Each structure stands twice: as C-alpha cells, then as structure tokens.
C-alpha cells in the first residue's frame, strides 16, 4: 500500500520538479536588477520598477531584486521607492545584471515621469512638453479630468456649468487643440463650445501636454496644442489587483464610483474598469442652483496586453455614455439671470440636454529590433451626439462622427548619437446626420487625411537637436456638392543645451489646420451655445508658427522654469457676431483674419526651504495675450492666472490612520479688460482651497483625500465660462471626500 502511494507521489512530484527546475533555469537566464540604498548598500525591499514599453508597474522582492524578462532593447526603466530619489536607465539586452543605487531623498520635488510620446524622461525631453500624473493628482483639488489638467501653467478650461469642459492651451481651444488617448486621435465634434471631452479620469495614468503648434508629430489640426492621455499601467506579472475608488462632492451632491480589476501573467495582461458618476445642479455662492447643470456618466474600459520576445501588442476598448444638461439655455435677446437658477437642486433629466455615446477601439503593435523599432497603431472611434432642445423624444440634432486613424512609424538608431524616425499617418473621418432629428447644423461629410514625416535627432555632448519635416494633405467631400483638398509642408527645429543644473530649450514649430465642415457649411441653430452659426465656403487653411524658449533650473531645493512663447497665425479662423438674429437667436459668422498672434509666458517654481524640511512652496503663473490684425484682441483668451500652493508633509509614523499632507492653495485671476468686440470684461477674483491627505494602513494602504474648495464662498465668474454673459457665477463652497480602496 505504502509502495503504491509512494509511486503515486513520485509520479506527481516529477513533473512539478521538472517545472521548478525549468523555471530556475529561466530565472538564471533572466537579467536581474538590484536596487540598493546608496548609503547602506542594502537592498531596498519592494522597490518599484516601471517598464515603459510594457506599461507595467512591479515591485522588487524583499531584497530589492527583480528579474527582467521579455524586455525590448533600449527600453527606458524607472526605479523608485518612497523616501528615495527615483532613477531612470535604458535597458540593454547584453547587460546581465543592473545594480541601481538610489540616493535617500532629502526632499522629492517632482517625480520622474517618462513622456509617453518620446519614451524619455520628461526633464530630458528636447521639446518643451509637460507630463502630469493623473492618478496622483488629487492634490490639484479637482475630481474631474479637465480640472486636473488645468492646474498646469498655460492650460485652462472653457466650461459650460460643471458637466462640460474643454481644454484651452495658451488661449487656443476647440478645433485648434487635439486630444489623443493611448495614441488614438479622439474626434468629438470639438467645434462646439459645449462639446467637451467625454472620457473621465477613470483608468488614466498621465497626460502629456504640448503647448503650441506641433503638426510634425500630430498632423493637421495640431495648431494650438495637444493633450496626450495614457492609460494606467498593468499590474505585475502573476498578480491581480482589485480597487474601488469613490468620491463625493457636497456642492453638486455628486458621487463618482470606479471599480477596477487588473490581472497579469508573464506575457498576458488585462485591465478592466467601470465607473458611474451622477451630479445634480451646482450651487452658486448666493445659495441658488443653476438649473440643468446636472449630468451623469457611465464608462467602461478594457485593455489587453501581450508580449513575446520583441513583439508587444495592446488591444484597447473604451465606452463612455454621458447625459449632460445644458444650463443657461434661452432664445431671449436680453435674458434675466433669475430664469436660469432655482431654489431646488434637481438631478433628473430635463430638456435641453445632450446624449453622448463614445466608443474607441485601438490595436497597437510594437516590434523591437537591435537598433530599430516599428510601431503600428490602428483604431476606430465613434462619437454619437444627440441634442434635445424642445422635445424629449425627438432630437433637435443628431450626428454620428466616425474616425479610422492609422499611424505607422519606424525609428532607427543610425549610431549612438543619431536617431532617425519616419512615419506615415492616415485618417478617414465621416460625419452623418440622423433623419430622425428635427434639423441638422452641419452637413454629412467625409474627409481623408494622409501625412508623411521624417525626424532626425542628434546628441553631441551637452547639446541635443531635433529637426523634422512633414507633408500633409486633407481631402474634404460634402454631399457631392463640395470637394476640395488642402495640403501643407510643416517643419520643426528643437535644440536643448544642458549645463550643470540649467537646461535651455528652444523650439521653432509650425502647424496647420484646414477649415472644418462646421466652419465651411454651418447653417443652423446650435442649441448648446444659443447661436445661429453660418459658415463660409471660401475659408483657407490656418497656419501657425511658434517660437518657444524655456529655461529650467533644478537642484535639491529648487525647481523652476520660465517659458516665454510667441505664436504667429496666418488666416486665423474665428466666429464673429453680427447684429442680426434668426429665430430670436444672435447670428454668428465664421470669418478669417489674415494675421493674428498670441504671446505670453509660463512660470513655475517649486521651492523647498532647507530650514523647513517639510514645507513646499509652489508658484505657477500663466500669461497669454492674443491679438488679430489692427491689434484687436482675440476672443476667449484666458485671464492671467497665479496659482500658489503651500504644502506641509507630516512625519511618517506607524499609526493606522496617518496624516500625510496638508495643502493650502490660492488661485488668483487678474481682471480681463482687453476683450474682443462681442465679449464683456471680467473681474479679478481669488479662490482659496484646502486639502488634507490621509492614509489608512491595514493589510493594504488606503489613501483618503478630503478638503474644501472655495473656502470663503467667493462669487466669481471666469472669463472662459459660457454662462458668463448670463451673469451666472461658478460653484460655491464645496466639501469633498475621496477614498481609493485596494481590495488585495
């Protein structure tokens, strides 16, 4: 009996032993990384290893060791650990073992983030781009994506109540700003001031912001700036993670809930997220509620990643379904602000409202060779926009915008100092109106883009340079009645010089934007903006060229940059009001100014005084001015903004509930008097916010954030608010609370 059992045990053990041995051999083959404390030469337990190309975020073992497997040559890797300075290095497949020594951090001024578009550390980028970590962005006192983005100097938002917000980069917005999500270009009828970005911060890791024209990399329409969002990393191999994020805001009595699941094997990875947000009408400092500023949003997101040898593939899907009330809707020429507020706060759906359904699918393939990499991104996006004005069941307008982009690029290291990249981009866009709608604002149309580019990057000692050329062509066809092609050659030259703690960057970039169908053929009521808009068929392409300089200084106590810019436009397209009305609504014509210019500067300072180890002072300043020919001001140029923060880091203790930081913020906006002919001036105002970060330490760490926005209940109206002309102020004092609970 015993003999028989022993035989069975042997049979069972044999394959397992074989598997263990095989794994051990594989382990021996794998390159390892040891992360050690530079001071003590001891391994740093559970230090973090971020592999950019695989989009993974893993922990070392208790000895600070990690096995590197299936990583492509020249892939950047970030290593970090709380209390230590982060470091980045480039992976080389012929290096068997990496020993990375981390310095104890006196203070961590700004974290190391890799630019998703260039694959190099933000501070080392040649062009002046800003990368912001979204998941760590609770510090910005904002729960929504655009609120977080607008905490960056040079970026503000154009809003319609709380539910609709669009990015404004150095005074440019709408069709002049492009949005990408994981490399996929997002088209969402962005010509309308009331057509905001439809996806939330759910599952988003970071955003990269390119200020100014950048058609070289992003093609037509990249005239005012680009927002490039990147999804959260996958979890470590052979682990899984479930998390619940929940937040509440008192002003809108809103709640937002996100459920996330991450799974990963050695080669296959899966991220799943779903979320729901529901907000009632927002409260003004006077205590009334702005009628129909309510909104609700459902979202779902999935990402599936696979890698084998030198091939990485990512398949992604996003679904966003939003119902957004349109506040301040009127046909009256002289509306009374009291008609747009109520003493009761509601959240149910009433007319007028928007229904927006977006779906994005993308397939990304990357193949790495010894000295080259080939990337192919194909995708499909669809944006269904329905606006109900006077009837609940019959839409006023209903449009479907479909986009099929393709991007192929090849990068080749000609030698140690020179990288050459060539690329081909194409995009097919189709807009169609539903016959069920009462009217259509823009006609059915198709457009076809094709672009070819070549970029060369060269490094010599402390100097890095990059130059590139790109040719783009767009063909627009409208109902067999209009067919026209627009083409342009664009270029860019960048140079960076590093000397000690100083970095000096200079960039000359150009961008172009053919007129959009809405600008060519609009002829109808746009309910979202209470305007009758009329297009002009003979509009030419807009062209922009920008000179951007930046000076950066960074040491262990101080980080600052000064970034002046000058952007010159040719054939600038804008909406001009007229003294006519149609159906009681003011008529706006699309017009073109032969010349226009924007100029200004951004300044950022992060100071950590040596005598007060736990104190941080941050100051951001954004100044932009815009004028067209005859020195007339351009419309919708933001107010000058001063953003000041004072943060105190509390000492880490082993308490179950620990206070991490307390931050006080002041946002000051200067008055705006230089306004365009149809705008009114805006008054100066200051908003004070306070934020407290806590951590609950149990089996896992649960971050908690709570605070108050607009502490003094200040009445303010931002110059970029669509409700400004109705005299409707921004939200009153707002208490918020958020918790991010990781289940395993």
């Amino acid at each position: 009996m015993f003999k028989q059992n022993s035989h069975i045990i042997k049979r069972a053990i044999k394959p397992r032993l074989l598997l263990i041995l095989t794994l051990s051999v594989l382990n021996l083959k794998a390159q390892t990384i040891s992360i050690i404390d530079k001071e003590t030469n001891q391994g740093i337990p559970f230090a973090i290893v971020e592999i950019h190309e695989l989009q993974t975020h893993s922990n070392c073992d208790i000895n600070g060791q990690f096995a590197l497997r299936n990583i492509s040559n020249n892939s950047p890797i970030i290593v970090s650990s709380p209390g230590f300075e982060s470091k980045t290095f480039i992976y080389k497949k012929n290096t068997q073992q990496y020993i990375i020594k981390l310095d104890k951090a006196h203070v961590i001024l700004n974290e190391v983030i890799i630019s998703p578009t260039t694959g190099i550390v933000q501070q080392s980028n040649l062009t002046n781009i800003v990368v912001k970590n979204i998941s760590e962005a609770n510090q910005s006192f904002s729960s929504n994506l655009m609120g977080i983005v607008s905490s960056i100097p040079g970026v503000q938002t154009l809003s319609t109540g709380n539910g609709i917000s669009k990015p404004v980069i150095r005074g440019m917005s709408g069709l002049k700003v492009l949005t990408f999500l994981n490399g996929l270009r997002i088209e969402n009828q962005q010509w309308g001031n009331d057509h905001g970005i439809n996806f939330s911060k759910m599952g988003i890791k970071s955003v990269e912001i390119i200020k100014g024209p950048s058609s070289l990399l992003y093609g037509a329409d990249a005239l005012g700036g680009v927002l490039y969002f990147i999804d959260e990393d996958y979890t470590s191999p052979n682990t899984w993670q479930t998390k619940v994020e929940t937040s509440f805001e008192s002003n809108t009595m809103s709640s937002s809930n996100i459920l996330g699941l991450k799974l990963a094997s050695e080669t296959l990875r899966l991220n799943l997220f779903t979320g729901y947000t529901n907000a009632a009408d927002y409260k003004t400092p006077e205590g009334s509620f702005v009628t129909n500023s309510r909104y609700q949003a459902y979202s779902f997101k999935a990402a599936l990643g696979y890698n084998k040898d030198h091939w990485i593939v990512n398949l992604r899907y996003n679904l966003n379904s939003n119902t957004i009330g349109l506040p301040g809707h009127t046909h009256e020429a002289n509306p009374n602000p009291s008609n747009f507020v109520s003493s009761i706060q509601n959240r149910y759906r009433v007319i007028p409202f928007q229904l927006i359904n977006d779906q994005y699918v993308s397939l990304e393939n990357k193949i790495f060779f010894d000295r080259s990499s080939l990337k192919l991104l194909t995708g499909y996006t669809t944006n269904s926009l329905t606006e109900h004005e006077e009837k609940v069941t019959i839409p006023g307008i209903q449009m479907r915008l479909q986009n099929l982009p393709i991007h192929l690029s090849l990068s080749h290291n000609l030698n140690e100092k020179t990288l050459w990249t060539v690329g081909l981009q194409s995009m097919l866009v189709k807009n169609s109106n539903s016959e069920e709608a009462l009217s259509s604002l823009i006609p059915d149309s198709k457009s076809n883009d094709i672009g070819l580019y070549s970029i060369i990057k060269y490094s010599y000692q402390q100097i890095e340079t990059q130059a590139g050329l790109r040719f783009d062509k767009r063909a627009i066809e409208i109902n067999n009645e209009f067919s026209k092609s627009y083409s342009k050659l664009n270029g860019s030259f960048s140079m960076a010089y590093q000397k000690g703690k100083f970095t000096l960057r200079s960039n000359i970039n150009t961008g172009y934007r053919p007129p959009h169908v809405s600008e060519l053929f609009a002829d109808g009521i746009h309910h979202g903006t209470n305007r009758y808009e009329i297009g002009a068929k003979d509009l030419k392409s807009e062209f922009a060229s920008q000179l951007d300089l930046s000076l950066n200084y960074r040491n262990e106590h101080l980080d600052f940059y000064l970034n002046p810019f000058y952007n010159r436009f040719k054939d600038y397209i804008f909406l001009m009001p007229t003294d006519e009305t149609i159906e009681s609504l003011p008529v706006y014509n699309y017009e073109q100014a032969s010349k226009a210019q924007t100029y200004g500067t951004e300044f950022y300072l992060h100071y950590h005084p040596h005598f007060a180890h736990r104190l941080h002072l941050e100051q951001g300043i954004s100044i932009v001015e815009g004028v067209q020919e005859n020195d007339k001001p351009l419309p919708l140029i933001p107010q000058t903004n001063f953003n000041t923060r004072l943060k105190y880091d509390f000492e880490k203790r082993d308490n179950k509930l620990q206070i991490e930081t307390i931050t006080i913020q002041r946002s000051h906006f200067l008055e705006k008097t230089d306004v365009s002919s149809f705008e009114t001036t805006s008054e100066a105002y200051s908003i004070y916010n306070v934020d407290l970060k806590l951590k609950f330490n149990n089996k896992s760490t649960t971050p908690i954030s709570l605070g108050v926005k607009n502490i003094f209940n200040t009445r303010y109206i931002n110059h970029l608010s669509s409700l400004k002309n109705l005299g409707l102020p921004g939200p009153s004092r707002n208490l918020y609370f958020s918790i991010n609970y990781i289940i395993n």
Partner: protein
Amino acid sequence: MKKTIISLKKIGITLSILLLASCSDECAECHVVADIDGAEYELMELGEHCEEELHLIEEDGYTIVDTILVDIDGNNLPNPVLPGDAVEVHCGEEHDH
C-alpha cells in the same frame, strides 16, 4: 481566496441591481406653447405622458380648437391664439423656478 470570490460576487450582484434600477420609463410633463412676437407663452398643461404616447404627442403636436386670450397663469396674451394657429408641444422642461 474563497472569501474574495464571495465578495466579488456580492459586488457584481449589487452593480447589476443598481444598473437595472436605473432603467426606468421615459415620462414627462407636457404643455402647449405659442410663439407671439418672438416670445414664448405657455397656454395649457397637457399632463404627464410616457414612452410611445410621449413620442406621439411630441411628433403630432396639438391643434387649437377655441380662441385663447390668456396664458396658463391668466395673463392676457399680446395677440389671441386662433384655431389653426401654429403652436408647439413642449415636454420635459424644468418647472420649479
């Protein structure tokens, strides 16, 4: 592990209930509106309508059979609304201000 599976199951059931609970019939209060000299006047309430009935009343509109001299609050209209005049049916507006 078993405990985790049970808790995930609970989360799934709760989410399903919440999703089902959020699917309700489309109903709205309707009223008749006349446009006189560029201003809108509410003439009468038509009560609550739901689903197909709501769609039909919005699509078919309303026909005035008697001359109307005052609005819903009893205020005199600038011009009377006569039988056959164009009027609109508005449904689903907010009425608490």
